[in-house]
């Protein structure tokens, strides 16, 4: 079972900075970084980011779960939960 780390998501996000119209130069990305308040995403490029993550990891995030995402750690937890659902091992 491969776990998706906060560092992996942070690196992926940096690679998408131009695509998502974000200025992440010199911005530290940690698990606690809030996507909207710290990384200055708005609700729409947050959606774009989550859709790109769905494709990258082959998962489907429900509309309900979309609303729960705040920090980078939330994203990692969500993706790991979807990739490795409890009871699937």
């Amino acid at each position, binding site marked *: 079972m491969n776990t998706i780390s906060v560092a992996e998501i942070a690196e992926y996000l940096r690679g998408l900075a131009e695509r998502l119209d974000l200025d992440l130069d010199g911005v530290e990305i940690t698990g606690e970084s809030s996507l909207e308040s710290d990384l200055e995403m708005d609700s729409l490029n947050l959606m774009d980011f989550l*859709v790109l993550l769905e494709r990258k990891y082959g998962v489907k995030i429900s509309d309900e779960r979309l609303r729960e995402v705040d920090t980078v750690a939330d994203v990692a937890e969500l993706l790991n939960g979807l990739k490795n659902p409890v009871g699937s091992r």
Partner: protein
Amino acid sequence: MTDAAVIDAIGHHLPEARETNDELARRIDTSDEWIRTRTGIRARSRAGDDEPTSVLATRAGREALGRATNGGADVDTVIVATTTPDMKCPATAPVVASDLGLENTATFDINSACTGFLAGLATAAGLITSGNSRAVLLVGAEKYSSIIYPQDRGTSPIFGDGAAAMVLRPGYRQQAGAIGRVHLGSDGRLWALAHVLSGGSAQPLAADPHDPFLRMDGRATYRHAVARMTDSCQRVLKDESLTAEDVDLLVAHQANARILTEVARELEVPAEKALVDLTDIGNTAAASIPVALSRAQEAGVLRGGETVLLTAFGAGASWGSTVLRWPELTSPNLTTTEGPNR
């Protein structure tokens, strides 16, 4: 024998009044910058108290009829695509037909929210090719300001009021302006994405002050809109053996500028070929596609011969797409804008 419905004329009507972002920011917690970066909208059109949807639709209809072959004298069917009818009952279309002086016409409304105009195109084409209609006046008309909760910062900045009308008549599949396959789809499980709770048979009366007005889950709507419009466009392009490279103009439902950019990116249609026509009017729902087409025709962006890809996503959830070759239409500035009857 004819085998297709073809576009004969188009016209639109937008109310004069605009509510700017700064004006909006005086009454709700928002700002010009917040609205512009998320929607691309600077002002939205606002119909007056004496301008219900039928008035907007009639003015747009009169303009289209004035440009139509024989002044649209053979129009025997009027279809109004709207989410904001004048009344819950009857439909708005008979009122519009009457106000246009069109007597004994078949009239009905189509309620498919922002997909309404494309559902109307499919319906009009079917009526014409089956011989049930000689010529159809198809109107997309909305007074969305009538279902916007004034304090809702999610919907107030987005929606505008307006109408556009198209005359369709019998023709041939190979002709420019012929309506081909219109791909339509829906997923009723997503009804809550955008809905008005009260006023229907499930809940006739409002239990909460917000119930008679639109509620919208902006985040989820954005995601589904991009995915469904992209998929639907790819289907119609494939059906017509076309690729994104063949598209001269992508006219997507003008929901917000960011959705338009994203759909173009997903389809690999260059950004400059994706029409953005909402900056000064907002999202006019079922009217947005024909308003954009009519204004593109007036501005000379569409001259005839262009391959135009139309796509929409709206409440339902519903979506649809079609691709057509734009016809050479009578230049609006060479004709009278007065209709045949009034």
